[in-house]
């Protein structure tokens, strides 16, 4: 098990904890580009998914966008974006945003659609205006699925951001890609551990956030974590 011992040594080496190629710097890069992509993706996707779900229109589009999104090869998308926009963060951002959108549209659509029609009727009967009804009644009930969409997107964006190292991006993917290139299996393995841990941490922290955001009334009604409306994996 000299291999695992080498990996432990790699993590223990203080040189790997400072400077531009240090773990803290790479973590910041990885989280920053992922968070920006998910935020921009959410600004685009959530209004679309929520509006489609509220009006119950274009359901096939909202569902099928996930089917199409799944078919997009993240690797090809990143490299094409790189050829179009050149070096820097812009191509990475564009590709990651494109991959972040589909699960959020589908999940928020399904979340809004699944609001009990009786509840909508009751809200209307109590005199809620359309916008108030959406914001105060339908959205709180749809929080579990909307959040599941954000969680799915975020985990996939973190995963795909690893590939960004191929087009000169930063983040933990750097260690994996450089490890492959230099045939340095210790660095490769250490990088993979970091990437996997970050993906896991993203999933867990967003599940925690979801639990905090779900209104207390629904929390009492439902099993703790809501299922996703889509299975999505791009990287």
């Amino acid at each position: 098990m000299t291999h695992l011992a080498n990996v432990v040594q790699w993590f223990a080496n203080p040189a790997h904890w400072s400077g531009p190629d240090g773990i803290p710097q790479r973590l910041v890069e990885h989280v920053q580009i992922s968070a920006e992509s998910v935020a921009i993706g959410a600004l685009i996707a959530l209004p679309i998914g929520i509006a489609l779900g509220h009006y119950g229109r274009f359901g096939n589009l909202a569902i099928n966008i996930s089917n199409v999104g799944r078919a997009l090869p993240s690797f090809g998308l990143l490299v094409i974006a790189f050829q179009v926009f050149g070096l820097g963060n812009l191509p990475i951002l564009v590709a990651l945003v494109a991959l972040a959108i589909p699960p959020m549209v589908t999940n928020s659509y399904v979340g809004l659609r699944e609001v009990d029609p009786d509840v909508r009727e009751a809200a209307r009967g109590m005199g809620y205006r359309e916008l108030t009804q959406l914001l105060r009644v339908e959205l709180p009930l749809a929080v579990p699925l909307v959040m599941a969409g954000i969680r799915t997107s975020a985990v996939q964006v973190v995963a795909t951001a690893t590939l960004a190292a191929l087009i000169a991006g930063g983040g933990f993917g750097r260690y994996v890609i450089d490890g492959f290139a230099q045939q340095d299996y210790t660095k490769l393995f250490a990088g993979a551990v970091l990437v996997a841990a970050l993906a896991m941490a993203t999933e867990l922290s967003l599940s925690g956030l979801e639990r905090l955001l779900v209104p207390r009334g629904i929390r009492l009604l439902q099993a703790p974590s809501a299922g996703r409306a889509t299975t999505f994996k791009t990287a």
Partner: protein
Amino acid sequence: MPSSAFLDYVDPWVNWTWLSTHVPLFTDAVLQHLTLTAIAVAGGLALSLPLGIAAHRWRALRNPLLGFFGVVYTIPSLALFALLVPYTGLGIVTAEIGLIGYTVLILMRNLVVGLESVPPAVLDAADGMGYRPLARLLFVELPLALPAMFAGVRIATVTTIGLVTITALIGLGGLGQLINKGLIENFHTPLVVATTLSIALALMADLTLIGLQRVAVPWSRDTAS
């Protein structure tokens, strides 16, 4: 083509002349792509059938099994391959362990959901007709779970076709190899054509499976999501 300096040459998105002389490159890549996908989905089915049935039969196994493969599913493919390379080397074994690991979750979850959605009245009727547990599973429960299974196969296939491109980094890749070639040589044609072919392959596989489902399971009107 302008005869000016080499640096002025603008690489078109698709160079049809080059493409027409390099067709075998693409057919070979598509073939490898489909082979890797087929092994991953078939291997996933072979594993998920017994695991899914076990998870359905013994409640205590359900959450540990789904949880374990859920964790595997969360690991980014590049990281999973990198974790395996020191042990299984560069190549098909590493690629398929990763890809099968992902398809198992999708297929097993759909099988479990499908089995759970069989109405209790149907089970009662089957028991009343004298079905033994194994016969009830084979002739009543599994056929009713087939639509959900098909949805799982569709999702697993489309997902795998996308993921196979990433195996280019461990020396395989199918169409991913050509994406990589485009990246390394700064050459647009293989990149654009391979990406387009990968999307087309995924959508065609999805449509083929929908057609197959119509024929094989006419009692289903389910759609994958």
